[in-house]
């Protein structure tokens, strides 16, 4: 296959998604936008956490902290470069460029945080890892809460309203593609091997610690992206948005969708975001019904909605369908 065709295939999903997203953005009423953005952010969070919890089989419950690192970094960049002018470029384009740079910066700092947390903690397994990630998550949040430039407990307000359905949608496409291409590649199979049997994986030449750290770093980077997107919709970033509760929310989405299933994470994140919205009218019963919903789902489908299955397992080839064995993605 020619290089040009490969390149096209690599970016094709973005080219298809962009006009669709612009269309949705144009037709959706204002009050939908926030829900759709929240949905997209949750999808990014769930899919990225799935790389660690589902693919690699390591139980991390500190995802919100990486989201916080990304959110604060992005907020600092957009507020720092507010009103920037670059020669002849129109203000709108400059704003978009700054925002894109802010998101990338957020991903970068979040991945550094992931590396710092991952290297010491990924020598542990199971419950121990969960506790350590929880601890690190809280440490990061508390550090932010006590840093003056980050506005301490009040956070940073008055962020530029940059995030819309298009930005969020592109973030979702990037995240899902990252996870899917990973899952179907030899690198992703190394992660699955670690989940299946760490001792055997190690004996088959897989540097288990190294791959776990890489998975953790990537997962953290995309959590950072989600954070950057979210705060530029609600125009405010405070430490309270990134508590342990937020981390658990994401874990619930991953478990509910099925550990290791990208489709599952997408569906669970969508459904749970919508459920919380719809149940808003019920006021004090909202959390009761939400919890009941979770209990019933877990009792009836203990391995999650999708288990480890994916939609593309059943799709025809020309639609991107692909089974576990062989072929081009």
């Amino acid at each position, binding site marked *: 296959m020619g290089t040009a065709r490969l390149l096209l295939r690599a970016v094709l999903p973005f080219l298809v998604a962009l006009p669709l997203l612009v269309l949705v953005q144009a037709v959706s009423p204002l009050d939908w936008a926030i829900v759709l953005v929240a949905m997209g952010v949750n999808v990014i969070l769930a899919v990225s956490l799935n790389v660690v919890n589902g693919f690699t089989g390591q139980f991390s419950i500190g995802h919100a902290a990486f989201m916080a690192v990304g959110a604060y970094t992005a907020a600092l960049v957009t507020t720092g470069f507010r009103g920037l002018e670059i020669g002849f470029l129109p203000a709108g384009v400059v704003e978009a460029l700054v925002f894109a740079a802010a998101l990338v910066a957020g991903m970068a700092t979040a991945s550094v945080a992931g590396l710092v947390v991952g290297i010491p903690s990924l020598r542990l397994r199971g419950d121990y890892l969960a506790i350590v990630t929880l601890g690190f998550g809280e440490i990061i949040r508390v550090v932010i809460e006590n840093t003056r430039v980050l506005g301490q407990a009040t956070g940073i307000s008055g962020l530029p309203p940059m995030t819309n359905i298009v930005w969020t949608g592109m973030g979702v496409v990037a995240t899902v593609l990252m996870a899917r291409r990973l899952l179907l590649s030899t690198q992703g199979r190394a992660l699955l091997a670690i989940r299946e049997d760490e001792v055997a994986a190690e*004996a088959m030449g897989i540097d288990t610690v190294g791959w776990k750290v890489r998975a953790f770093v990537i997962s953290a980077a995309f959590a950072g992206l989600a954070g950057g997107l979210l705060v530029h919709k609600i125009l405010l970033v405070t430490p309270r948005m990134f508590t342990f509760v937020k981390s658990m929310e994401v874990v619930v989405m991953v478990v509910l969708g099925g550990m290791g299933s990208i489709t599952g994470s997408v569906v669970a994140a969508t459904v749970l975001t919508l459920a919380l919205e719809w149940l808003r009218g019920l006021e004090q019963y909202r959390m009761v019904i939400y919890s009941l919903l979770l209990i019933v789902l877990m009792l009836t489908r203990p391995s999650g909605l999708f288990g480890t299955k994916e939609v593309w397992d059943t799709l025809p080839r020309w639609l991107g369908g692909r089974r576990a064995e062989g072929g081009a993605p």
Partner: protein
Amino acid sequence: MTAPVLEARKVSMRFGGLRALAGFDLAMQTGELVGLIGPNGAGKTTAFNAITGVYEPTEGEVLVAGERVNGMRPHQICVRGVARTFQNVRLFRDLTALDNVRIACHAGSESGFTSAWLLTPRHEREEERIRQRAEEFLRVMGLSQRSGELARNLPYGEQRRLEIARALATGPKLLCLDEPAAGMNASEKVALMDLIRRIRDEFALAILVIEHDMRLVMGVSERVLVFDHGVTIAHGKPEEVRRDPKVIEAYLGDSYLAEHDIAAPPGEAGP
């Protein structure tokens, strides 16, 4: 002569007060098939673990193709050419047979995540190469038909063979098989031993086999090591080892020796 594929020099393994392995010496050349036998708890699997890096030997050194590997992690030793199977089959149970082998083909590959995302041409070529290689190993082990099945759904004998295919896919110079015939019936065992010999010839490997079944291991190995309580009590050609009184004693007890009056060393023979 080139450096031996494997050289263990006075390897000892201590767990607190317990000495599981003492003064284990072994040198193996390419194409050799060596059997490792001994009663339960004799230290056979410990020897494997010391060679493959699961444990770091407390004393002595292990050399793979002349390079000292003490203290390396198992994946590093694997990349240097030592592959193994496990006593109680350790497949990637929820992955397909093909994926099990493909994972092992990855061994030592340096390509990172980025090329997988960008779908670079190099990545595509690499994926294709790995798939072909994996299919080849499945074919050699007679598992072509099972390629798309989950490892856990395969019958026991095929799981054992898949584990060998997976080990071969790492491209080893030395293959360590930990009781490959465990749980098989007599005819399956014979077929397996034929297969092991064939693999050795086809892939030019050194093979180290742990086996409980004396007759079986004697049949295929050129050399046999006998362990008892962590000590190598005999080392030599199968027919010599078979007659060694220390070996018979370890396996059958000294009352058997006395009763059958076999091979008791001169001067100590019974009345």
